[in-house]
């Protein structure tokens, strides 16, 4: 239990998707103008990570890894499909995002209206594929660990985008030098926030 909690906290604060690895920066910069939309996108990212990470974990362990196809029979025992990882992961992500979009549209139109426009964006959000690749890179052992890591990364990403959106809303009333307005100051602010987040480094539960 403590082990899982450790992964969770680590993925939110220490290995924060935005501040430590710059993943999902494009939507982070583009959609962080107001708090409301950034909360919507943040929730959508957490949701998609919650579903895609375990699925990709299972795909990795039962299809892609060297020897993972052993369950099909002896002849498959040393098949190594790991070179297909990128293709399969991105296909799984795109398919799941599409599926989630259709399911939400059918069963909860109100949720669809608030999340809907963000979902297609998420398929190409590097945070999702990045989390899947980190999941593979760090060799999580069980599907629970992977899921906890996925949700943690999602929450970390959401934390980052919501806080920068809040700062940018306030920033509208400040006197920023003209050439720095918009993009420039957002970069520098993110850098400063990242320095603050480095204070979490080394925390272990």
């Amino acid at each position, binding site marked *: 239990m403590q082990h899982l909690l450790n992964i969770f906290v680590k993925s939110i604060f220490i290995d924060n998707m935005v501040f430590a690895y710059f993943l999902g920066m494009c939507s982070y910069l583009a959609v962080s103008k107001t708090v409301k939309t950034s909360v919507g996108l943040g929730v959508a990212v957490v949701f998609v990570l919650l579903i895609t990470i375990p699925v990709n974990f299972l795909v990795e362990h039962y299809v892609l890894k060297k020897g993972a196809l052993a369950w099909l029979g002896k002849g498959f025992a040393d098949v190594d499909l790991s070179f297909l990882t990128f293709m399969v992961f991105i296909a799984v992500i795109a398919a799941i995002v599409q599926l989630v979009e259709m399911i939400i549209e059918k069963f909860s139109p109100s949720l669809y209206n608030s999340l809907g426009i963000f979902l297609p964006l998420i*398929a190409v959000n590097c945070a999702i594929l990045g989390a899947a690749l980190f999941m593979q890179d760090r060799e999580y052992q069980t599907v629970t660990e992977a899921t906890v890591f996925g949700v943690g990364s999602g929450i970390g990403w959401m934390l980052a985008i919501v806080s920068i959106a809040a700062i940018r809303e306030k920033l509208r009333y400040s006197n920023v030098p003209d050439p720095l307005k918009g993009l420039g100051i957002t970069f520098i602010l993110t850098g400063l926030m990242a320095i603050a987040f480095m204070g979490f480094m080394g925390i272990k539960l």
Partner: protein
Amino acid sequence: MSNIEREPMFSAKNIKLFTAPLSRDNPITVQVLGICSALAVTVKLKPAIVMALSVTIVVAVSNVVIAAMRKYITDRIRIIVQLVVIATMVILVDQVLKAYAFDVSKQLSVFVGLIITNCILMGRLEAFAMANKPWPSFIDGLGNGAGYGIILVVVAFFRELLGSGTLFGYPVMEKLGLYSTGYKNNGMMILPPMALIVVGLIIWFQRSRDKSLIEKK
């Protein structure tokens, strides 16, 4: 189609396609595309250059492929088609890197894979290759890859020089004899936050040179 005059291969328009992304229409500082991977690989010059080359190749080739197929791609499934083309190119690049530059490929770790979701690719495919012929698309890809590369190299140059006192691993600061005068490397530069701040400063510099880029609000 047939009555349209064929334009020469290196017409002014095509050259502009290549040069615009280098400065005025830079993918990173102006179009805000492809930031994700731009920052993480800029601690040292070498991985930055490898990354820039890989992205350029992937953008240029997938631009050509998509431009060649653009009339056969239905609107609804275009994102999947684009992703499949990009993913194939990235797998090729990844395998080549693993075979010929294993240490760099280890340093780049997941970021080679992340070229797939690099917004430059989707952005250029959507905005350019879906509406243009293969040759201009190829140039557009090269231009955008190069524009991305320039920023990467500039950021990596400052981070490596100030952070570790080397360039391509060559100890510049030591040879200049700066350490004996009490100079110290700025360890902050090799940490992730400084990449963001350096890019912020580049944007500041570029926009104060070219006032038309300033965001109006």
